[in-house]
């Protein structure tokens, strides 16, 4: 009886070990495919957003907006007021991941983010003409979701994005996104701004070159169908 019990535990242990080994040895492309497939579950979605901007050189109150997305690449933000979002916004990741032949994915180690263990996948584009220079994704392979991404492009610089998931984790859609963006040092002549009498000394905040955009997403409506007219500006 004791021998049977011991044999059972040895077998269970070896099974768990091999499963964990399998997880760890998934190829980077397989991991990315897993994430992409999860993202593709949402054919379309609309969501309400609260956008809070904390950028040097820009002062504004949080803005409410409605965001629409439809496969493959239709994206629109509708806001009563003026909303500022990163150029590499919501659909950049999906667009990048959809063609796994256009880049080489490399496993760059692992990192713990919050309570989740993530695998870091570096994405290097195959073509010299690609806008992307380097992509880095922190992927929770248990849930097939991206918890952090850092995309460096020729046109838009580097944007670091942190994702927090909640209600729509099954579609890989986050509840909160925090974008860290590079902002060029901003200084325009007083005469150009017609601000000739401004004698205030530069704000210490003005020396900051990084800023953050916080986007809280709520009231998701996933796969309910969105008419194409909404995407016409």
């Amino acid at each position, binding site marked *: 009886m004791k021998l049977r019990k011991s044999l059972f535990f040895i077998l269970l242990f070896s099974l768990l070990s091999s499963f964990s080994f399998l997880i760890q040895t998934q190829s980077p492309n397989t991991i990315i495919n897993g994430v992409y497939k999860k993202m593709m579950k949402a054919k379309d979605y609309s969501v309400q957003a609260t956008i809070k901007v904390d*950028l*040097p*050189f*820009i*002062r*504004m*109150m949080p*803005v409410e*907006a409605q965001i629409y997305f439809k496969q493959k690449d239709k994206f629109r*933000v*509708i*806001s*009563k*007021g*003026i*909303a*500022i*979002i*990163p*150029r*590499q*916004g919501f659909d950049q990741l999906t667009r990048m991941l959809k063609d796994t032949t256009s880049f080489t994915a490399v496993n760059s180690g692992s990192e713990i983010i919050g309570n989740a263990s993530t695998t870091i996948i570096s994405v290097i584009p195959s073509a010299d003409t690609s806008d992307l220079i380097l992509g880095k994704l922190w992927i929770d392979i248990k849930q097939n979701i991206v918890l952090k991404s850092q995309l460096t492009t020729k*046109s*838009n*610089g580097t*944007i670091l994005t942190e994702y927090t998931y909640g209600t729509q984790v099954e579609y890989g859609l986050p509840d909160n996104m925090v974008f860290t*963006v*590079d*902002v*060029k040092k*901003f*200084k*325009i*002549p*007083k*005469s*150009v*701004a*017609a*601000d*000739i*009498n*401004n*004698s*205030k000394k*530069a*704000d210490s905040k*003005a020396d900051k070159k990084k800023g953050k955009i916080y986007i809280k997403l709520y009231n998701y409506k996933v796969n309910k169908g969105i008419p194409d007219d909404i995407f016409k500006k």
Partner: protein
Amino acid sequence: MFWKSTYNEFIKIAAKPRSYIGLGAITLLIGIVLFALKMDGLTYISFITAPFEQSLSFEGNLLNGNTMAFIILQMLIIHIPLLVALVTGDLVSGEAAMGTIRLLLTKPISRSSVLFSKYLAGCAYTFIIIVWLAVLALGVSKVIFGTGDLMVLNSDGLVILQQTDVLWRFVSGFAVAFLALVTVATLSLTFSCFSENSIGPIVSTMAVIILFTIIGTLDVPIFDRIRPLLFTTHMAAWRSFFEDPLPIKEIVNSLVVLVVHCVVLLAIAVYKFKHKDILS
């Protein structure tokens, strides 16, 4: 008697064709600016957003009536003093040139009351100019472009004000712009008391404004002490209402400087007018 005299002075202003040059010029200028912005306003707006466009995208109605009104104010508020001085610089010297000042001063009313009547009528004219500017810049812009958040480009960054937070700023801004124009009106009236023709006070007023503006714009340390005392430095105080947070201390300081200028200039004008030789 004082109010009747003020009313008469206002009628005199209304009867002069030159009084309508200002209103006509504002109407024409705003009409041209609105037409140009309606045709190609997004190019103009992209000039404001360009420094940020590399990494950020602006969504929403950027080309709206509030932003247009601010752009128009910024363009015109520098030129409007000329239109005001054109009328207020003529208030005393015009009468001297025509010889009607002798008849005017035979009325049973003191010289200071006559001057104050002229001053009040000049202020009323300035008020009409500002109201007309507000109606065209804000009212017509909103009709053409709709409403929306206001984007203000300062030399140290971009301020975006929500549309619900904008109206009181415009009203306060126009009120301060009115005080600034009243200061110009007071200056030209004072010059008018020293002159026997209309051109002198108008040109002198503009010369002072240009000179002070140049001194105020030059970032040379030698002018650092003078700059805060010049009324032209504070004529742009209306712009402070479009900053966030509101620089209350600076606004109050500007109001004090403008009011002190008005009082001192008016005192000089009263002294000169009381001692003015109208017989020669």
